């Protein structure tokens, strides 16, 4: 079986339509981070809130598929060991457990899609999560995927759970609560393995944290995720603490999101 499978070779049936970053970049309309999407908080009183929730949950669904594929790949792509191109058995065991969770999340997401009136493949799939899981260093994979992107998933699940609570949707609230609990575990795996595998290698730790910063900023979506009152996706500080983030690390993510938002405002002001 091939090691380090590229995103283009992921198996999808005809229901799915993939859109990569470059295709989105070629879109001449303002990007989501530049005001294309609705940047208001996701609350039930917004006219388009249920539609936004459907699109967001389909994005989560495809993210769950890719998380399953990424964790599975990490079990396979590396020989056993503690080198920068190796993975300890216990790390693979954690990834196998994560596969189990992600497979369950896929099933939950399919049923949630049925509930919300969303068909599988109704929205385009962006393969960015899996692409972050293609890093040749397992520690960078775990910081990019488990700490950055699954950390973002914590923020999204928490936001969606609150949306479900406010709109009185018992199914959405219940599903988000259960998946959120698993995500905290996945992020904590990333935090734990980052510290264990780089305890005696500060350069590798620095590279991993830099990779995480790049992914965090890239997917802060122009500050859509943040701590402002009107942030569509709220930074879930408490759950991140439970997932092994130090206060200063959470502050840094909030600052990255704030920076992204200010950069967006500056770009929009420059455009006029």
């Amino acid at each position: 079986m091939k090691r380090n499978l590229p995103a283009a070779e992921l198996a999808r049936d005809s229901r799915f339509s993939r859109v990569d970053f470059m295709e989105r970049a070629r879109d001449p309309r303002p990007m989501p981070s530049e005001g294309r999407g609705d940047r208001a908080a996701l609350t039930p009183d917004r006219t388009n809130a249920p539609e936004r929730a459907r699109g967001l949950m389909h994005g989560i669904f495809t993210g769950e598929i890719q998380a399953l594929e990424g964790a599975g790949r990490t079990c396979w792509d590396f020989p056993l060991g503690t080198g920068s191109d190796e993975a300890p058995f216990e790390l693979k065991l954690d990834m196998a457990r994560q596969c189990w969770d992600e497979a369950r999340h896929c099933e939950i997401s399919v049923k949630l899609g049925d509930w919300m009136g969303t068909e599988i493949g109704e929205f385009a799939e962006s393969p960015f999560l899996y692409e972050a899981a293609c890093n040749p260093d397992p520690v960078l994979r775990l910081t990019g995927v488990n700490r950055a992107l699954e950390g973002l998933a914590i923020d999204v699940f928490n936001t969606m759970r609150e949306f479900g609570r406010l709109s009185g949707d018992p199914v959405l609230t219940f599903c988000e609560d259960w998946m959120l609990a698993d995500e905290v575990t996945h992020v904590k795996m990333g935090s734990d393995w980052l510290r264990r595998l780089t305890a005696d290698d500060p350069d590798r730790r620095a590279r991993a944290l830099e990779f995480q910063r790049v992914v965090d900023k890239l997917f802060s979506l122009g500050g859509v995720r943040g701590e402002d009152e009107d942030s569509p996706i709220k930074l879930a500080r408490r759950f991140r603490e439970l997932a092994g983030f130090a206060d200063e690390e959470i502050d840094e993510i909030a600052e990255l999101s704030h920076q992204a938002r200010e950069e967006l405002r500056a770009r929009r002001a420059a455009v006029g």
Partner: protein
Amino acid sequence: MSTVLPETFTMVLYDHDEIANAVDEVLGAIGFPPDEDVRVEVDEATPLARTKLVSVEPVVMTVDGGALEDPRRPRQLSTTFVSVVVGRLALQALDRRDADFGNPPADEDLPVARRVAWDVYAIGRLARLGYPGQRQRRLYNFRNRHGFTDAADAAFDHLWTADHLTWDEICAISDGALAARPDAD
């Protein structure tokens, strides 16, 4: 006969004639007077999905480009969405013209719950004409506005399957569902 603007799209990969054909087809299907012009103004610069019935006589509607966009293929047209969006607005224009229907407030003054209820009534009629109504999607939107209750589901079914409702009846159905919400006063 429809007038679709702009004539040429530069930011999205939409074809003017394809939209115009879909508009004419759905107008014919719902029984819109064939000698009347319907004007559809598409704002291609925005991927949002807002729609508005600007005028009833003559019928003029404004549509964000995103409302006609295939969610699986960014910047590509969905003729299905053209049919459903234009069909819904055209049916509501006909409702507004019908003296027996009643006198609903202007679109911008409609409470969200009542607007959603009216949309269900319109799209249910389109679905019976063979257009994809995405019933569960509409039900989810309706539940978000009227509560996740059996009463809300029954109200949805009433609206979805009805062919001749008045504005007062739509309001009564919507209000009845809202009154059954667990958090209703």
